[in-house]
C-alpha cells in the first residue's frame, strides 16, 4: 500500500470509475466507426490446373481453369460475396465437396468477386436471413426454395432479379425448363434464379417385398389403388398396433403437398384475385383418402411413425435410416432421396416410377414441384456479386458438374445428355415422366401457412378430431386470413 500513500480511497475509486468510462467511451467510438478494407488482387498471369478428386464413389473432375487466356480486367476493388447455404462437406459428403470446388472455380475465374461460403443449417437459413435483413447485414446471396419464396418476397426480404437479367448479356431464358422458371416469379416479377427442381417419385423396395413374400410385377400398376394393394401386404404391425415396417407411405417423407398435387388440387389458389379456397371436391377426396388410410393402418400409429422416422430425416446420413434398412416398402420420395439410398444402401434392390393417378381423383398431377433457387436479399452489400454467383452456378458447365454429384433433376435443356442420365437413374424418369405434369402452384406469401395447416388438419381428420368439412373450412379460413393480413402489411 506504500504506492498509494497520500491518495485517499475515495480518489482511487473515483479515478477508476472515470478511467472505466473513458475506456468504454473510446471503445464505443472505435466500434461505431466504419472500417473498410479494400482488397485489390493482382491477377497473375499464371495458368491454374486443378483437379479435385473426392471419395471414390463418383470421382469429380474439375475442368482446367486457365486464367491467363480468359483474364478479364477487374472493374474495381474485388468485392467479397457472402453466400449462405447448408452444403457442409461434413454432413453432405461429396455434394458439399463439389460445392466447395465450384466456389473455388468461381473465385479463381472472377476478378471482381470472391465468394465467402458461410454454412448455415438448412432449417435456420430463412429465419436468419429474415433477421439479418432486419438488422441491415444480410448475406449477398442465399439458397432459397420455391416453398419459401412467397413468404420472403411478400415481406420484402428478397429483391427482384429483373434488373440483373436485363443487364446480363449471357442470360438466356431458353436455357431453363418452364416449370422451375415459373416458380421464381412473385406477383409477375422474377425474384430468384432457378437451380434445380425437386419432384416426387414412387419408390418400391424389392428387397423388403421379398422378405415379406410379396411379388412386385415388372410393370408397376398404373393406378394408385392397385399400388396401395401391393403395399398393404408389406406392413409388419405388432399386436399392439405399433408399425414396425410400413408398406405404403405416400407422404411420410414429403410435405404432403405432393399428395395434394396427385389428387389434383391445383385450383385452391387464384393468383389474380389472391384468394384461397380449400372447399373443393379434390381437397375433399384427398382428406377422404387420408381418413381411410388412417382407418386401415391406425391413425395414431401412422402419425407416430412419421414423427419418428419420416419428415425429420431420421438416419439420413447414416446406414441406419429406415429407407436403407428395409423398413419401408413403398413410399413417395423426393428425387434427392435416391442418391442418398444409392450411397447408404448401394446393394438395395429397388424400382421407381412416377406417382400414378388415383381412380377416384381428377385434375391429376404426378407431383408438386419444389424448385431450388438462389435469392438476393434486400439490402445486400454486393447484390451484383450475388447475381454473379447465382448466374454462374446455373451456367451449363456448373450445372453439369453439380448435377452429376447431386443427382437432382436439372433445369437446363442442355443437361439432357447421356452422362446426365448415367449419373442417376432417376434423372431420366424425372425429366420424361414427371416434369411435364407437375403441379405449378404460384408463389404466394401464405404457402407455408397452407402447407403446415394442411398437414395438421389432415392429421386431425385421421385422428377423428375434426370432420372433413370442418377441416376444409378451417384450412380455407387460416390461409385466407393469412393472405389478407400479409397483403395489408405488404
Amino acid at each position, binding site marked *: 500500500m506504500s504506492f498509494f500513500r497520500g491518495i485517499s480511497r475515495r480518489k482511487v475509486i473515483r479515478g477508476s470509475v472515470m478511467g472505466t468510462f473513458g475506456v468504454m467511451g473510446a471503445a464505443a467510438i472505435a466500434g461505431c466507426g466504419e472500417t473498410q478494407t479494400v482488397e485489390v488482387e493482382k491477377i497473375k498471369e499464371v495458368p491454374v490446373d486443378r483437379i479435385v478428386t473426392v471419395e471414390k464413389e463418383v470421382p469429380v473432375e474439375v475442368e482446367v481453369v486457365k486464367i491467363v487466356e480468359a483474364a478479364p480486367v477487374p472493374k474495381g476493388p474485388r468485392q467479397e460475396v457472402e453466400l449462405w447455404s447448408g452444403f457442409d462437406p461434413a454432413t453432405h459428403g461429396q455434394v458439399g465437396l463439389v460445392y466447395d470446388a465450384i466456389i473455388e472455380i468461381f473465385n479463381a475465374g472472377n476478378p471482381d468477386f470472391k465468394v465467402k461460403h458461410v454454412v448455415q443449417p438448412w432449417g435456420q437459413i430463412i429465419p436468419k436471413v429474415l433477421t439479418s435483413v432486419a438488422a441491415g447485414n444480410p448475406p449477398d446471396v442465399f439458397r432459397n426454395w420455391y416453398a419459401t419464396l412467397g413468404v420472403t418476397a411478400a415481406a420484402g426480404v428478397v429483391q427482384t432479379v429483373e434488373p440483373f437479367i436485363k443487364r446480363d448479356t449471357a442470360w438466356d431464358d431458353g436455357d431453363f425448363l418452364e416449370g422451375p422458371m415459373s416458380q421464381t416469379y412473385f406477383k409477375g416479377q422474377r425474384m430468384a434464379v432457378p437451380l434445380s427442381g425437386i419432384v416426387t417419385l414412387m419408390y418400391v423396395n424389392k428387397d423388403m417385398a421379398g422378405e415379406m413374400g410379396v411379388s412386385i410385377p415388372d410393370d408397376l400398376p398404373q393406378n394408385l389403388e392397385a399400388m396401395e394393394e401391393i403395399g398393404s401386404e408389406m406392413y409388419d404391425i405388432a399386436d399392439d398396433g405399433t408399425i414396425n415396417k410400413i408398406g405404403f407411405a405416400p407422404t411420410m417423407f414429403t410435405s404432403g403437398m405432393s399428395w395434394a398435387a396427385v389428387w389434383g388440387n391445383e385450383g385452391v389458389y387464384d393468383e389474380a384475385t389472391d384468394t384461397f379456397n380449400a372447399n373443393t371436391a379434390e381437397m375433399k377426396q384427398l382428406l377422404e383418402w387420408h381418413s381411410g388410410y388412417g382407418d386401415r393402418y391406425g391413425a395414431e400409429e401412422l*402419425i*407416430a411413425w412419421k414423427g419418428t422416422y419420416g419428415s425429420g430425416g431420421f438416419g439420413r446420413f447414416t446406414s441406419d435410416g429406415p429407407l436403407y434398412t428395409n423398413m419401408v416398402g413403398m413410399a413417395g420420395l423426393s428425387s434427392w432421396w435416391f442418391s442418398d439410398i444409392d450411397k447408404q444402401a448401394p446393394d438395395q434392390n429397388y424400382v421407381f416410377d412416377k406417382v400414378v393417378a388415383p381412380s377416384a381423383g381428377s385434375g391429376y398431377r404426378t407431383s408438386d414441384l419444389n424448385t431450388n433457387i438462389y435469392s438476393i436479399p434486400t439490402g445486400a452489400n454486393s447484390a451484383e456479386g450475388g447475381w454473379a454467383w447465382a448466374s454462374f452456378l446455373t451456367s451449363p458447365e456448373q450445372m453439369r458438374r453439380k448435377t452429376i454429384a447431386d443427382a437432382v433433376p436439372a433445369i437446363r435443356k442442355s443437361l439432357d445428355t447421356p452422362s446426365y442420365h448415367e449419373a442417376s437413374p432417376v434423372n431420366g424418369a424425372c425429366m420424361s415422366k414427371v416434369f411435364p405434369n407437375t403441379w405449378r402452384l404460384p408463389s404466394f406469401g401464405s404457402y407455408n401457412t397452407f402447407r403446415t395447416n394442411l398437414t395438421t388438419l389432415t392429421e386431425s381428420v385421421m385422428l377423428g*378430431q375434426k370432420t372433413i368439412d370442418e377441416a376444409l373450412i378451417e384450412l380455407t379460413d387460416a390461409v385466407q386470413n393469412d393472405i389478407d393480413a*400479409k397483403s395489408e402489411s405488404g
Partner: protein
Amino acid sequence: MKRRETLWAMLFLSPWIIGFLGFTLFPLVASFWFSFTNYNIVNPAGAKFIGLDNWDFLFNKDNVFRQALGNTLYYALGLVIIGTSTDIFLAMLLNTKIRGRATYRLIYFIPVLIPAVAGALIWVWILNPQRGILNFGLDMIGVNGPNWLGSIHWVKPALIMMAVWGSGRAIIIFLAGLQEIPNHLYEAARIDGAGPIPVFRHVTLPLLTPVILFNVIVGLIFSFQAFTEPYVMTQGGPANASMLYGLHLYYQAFENLRMGYASAMAWLLFAIILLSTLIVFRGSRRWVYYEN
C-alpha cells in the same frame, strides 16, 4: 456535497439505467405499440396502425392459438404439480445424513448445467420408441412403452417428464428451505411421539410453504414461456398436440413474419402470467405459513 454525492450515485447507476431503458423498457413499449400494427419485422417504417385487428384475430380466428393455450395450461399445471412434489421428495432425500450426500446432490444438479438444446436432443434419443433407453427399461419390466413424442396422448407428459428431470435448481432451493427449519421443532415433535409422516405433515410441510410458494410462482412463469423443448423435439406435433404458446408465438413472428400479431400474443401471455401469479399470491394466504 449532497448534490455531488447524488451525481456520483447516478454515475454508478447509469450503466444499469441505460441498459434497462435501451434493452428492457424500450422494447417493452415498442412491442406494445407493434401489437396494434401489421409490423412484419423486415420493414419497421412500413408498419401501419390497424387498431384491434390483431387482438380480434387472436380471440376469434386463430384456431391454433386456443389449442396452444390449452396445451400450455396442461403443461404448466402438470409441471408445477408433479415437479413440485418430486422436488420436495428429492430434497428430503438429499437432506438425509448419508455417505456421499454431496455426490448425490451434484448428480441431481448436473441436468441444470446441460444446455437446453443439447438436453432436448438427448431426450429425443431417450424417448425413441424402438431404440430409446426408456422403453428399453420399461420393456425389461414387462411394460410396453408408448411412442412418447409421436403420440398425441403421451407427447405432453414426455415434455413434463423432461422438465422435471431438469429441475435441479428447485431441488437446491427446497434443500435450503429444509435446512432452515429449526431442529428444536423436530425434537419437540419426536418427544410428543410423532412418527415421520405426522412430522412431515405438521412440521416440515408448513415451514416449507414459503419456499413452495416461490418455486410454484417461478415454475408457472417459466412453464408458460416454454419454447426450446417443443421446438427442438416435436415442432409442435403430432397434430399440434405439443404446440405450446411460446412455440406458436415464434412461428407467427419468424415463419409467418407477423411480428405485430406475435407482439399481441406476447402481451396476452404477460397478462396470463400476471393473473396466475396474482391468483397464487392471493391464495397463498390460506396455505403459506410464516414463522413470525
